[in-house]
């Protein structure tokens, strides 16, 4: 099976069944899955909203989720079949950055944005104090998760 390590600010969706690994701290990953076509996609965003600075990349939640939905539709998914799972948004303390509550804001954005798009969240593991390492099977929609306990995560 095709394997992929998903970097922060990247997104991926394909018809080919793929195992995707990503590591999340305060970042959030939204896994979209279409149980009818058995295809899926995933993003990994770092901040909730694009503020007009720099490039309009999937580093920002509003862009990352919008683009991922678009990609799923382009692959042939019907909007009403798409289901979501969300992960990450931990409260990873970083002293040098003033990104207070960033994890929480990332989670809120995913919940609100998906609700607005009428995509149900069928499972999630968000918040808490530990980073997460997830393995997503894009064909079955299965996600395996491990906490990245004491190791430092900067994503």
């Amino acid at each position, binding site marked *: 099976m095709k394997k992929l390590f998903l970097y922060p600010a*990247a997104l991926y969706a394909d018809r080919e069944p793929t195992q995707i690994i990503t590591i999340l701290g305060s970042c959030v990953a939204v896994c979209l899955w279409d149980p009818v076509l058995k295809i899926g996609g995933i993003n990994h965003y770092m901040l909730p909203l694009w503020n*007009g600075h720099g*490039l309009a990349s999937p580093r920002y939640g509003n862009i990352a989720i919008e683009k991922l939905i678009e990609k799923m539709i382009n692959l042939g998914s019907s909007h009403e079949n798409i289901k979501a799972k969300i992960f990450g948004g931990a409260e990873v303390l970083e002293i040098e950055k003033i990104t207070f509550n960033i994890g929480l804001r990332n989670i809120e954005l995913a919940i609100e944005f998906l609700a607005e798009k009428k995509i149900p969240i069928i*499972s999630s593991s968000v918040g808490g104090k530990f980073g997460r*390492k997830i*393995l997503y099977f894009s064909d079955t929609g299965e996600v*395996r998760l491990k906490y990245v306990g004491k190791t430092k995560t900067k994503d």
Partner: protein
Amino acid sequence: MSDIQITDNLLLQELEKRFKEKETAILELEKITEELKAVNAKLTASEQLKSHFIANINNEIINPFASVLGLSRSILEVKDNDWEKVKYMAKLIFVEAHNLDFQLKNIFAAAEIEAGSIYPQISRINIINLIEGVVLDFEKDLKSKRLTFELINNTKFEKDDFTYKSDPEKLKLILSNLISNAIKFSKGAKIIVTVWLEDGILAMSVKDFGIGISQRNKEIIFDRFTRIDTGINSLNRGHGLGLSVVKALLELFGGDIAIESKVGDGSLFTVKIPETDDIVDEDGFSIDGGEVFFVDGAELF
């Protein structure tokens, strides 16, 4: 009785406190509203710039192409083995083609970044070689502006002993943008590139002695499609993607960029790029046996 008195006082204090809190909340709300307005204006401007970009891109791509085509035709028509003439025109073609290549690389990098489909492709790079290569591509531009170039190696390594694990193509694009800008905004004199290691992290700076950047412009130069109008050079080429691409690429590596500049005093751009540990294959999959990790004890969702 005295108890009630105290309670009254406390009540008043509490009321005052609440009023103050409300005031701060209103002030904060006003501040947030202001920020929102600013962001909104920015997003609108960004959309407008995007449409300008489509119009500009025509000039940026069609013009160099026309030159390349014209020059190639001239070469085909050269008679009597006039090699000097051919060489001269081939050089001009190279400059135009290089410029075209550079513009296209920026455009495609920006498109890939915005699509979220850009991945580091890590290998071991000879940094000094890489910098020299980039500068060589801009030799003609340096010459036409009478600029000299200086490379200072402040690492304790000799040129060939200094390798670093990163993505060579993306590093090249970062450097090309910084050097291209330095040339564009220079007014004679020279450009200095300095390389050093800071706690094992690669740092590179590009210094020019040009027109400098105002405080206001410092805030917007990383925005896409933003071109700083020099006022001197009406033929300011480029589409305003360069620095936004540089910033996004650096974010990909967990690096950053700093600017020191005063108007009329030149500019100093410093980038820091942490070394990427994993050698990754072309799909961006880290060869660290990550999947073994999930064999037991993983939660299912």
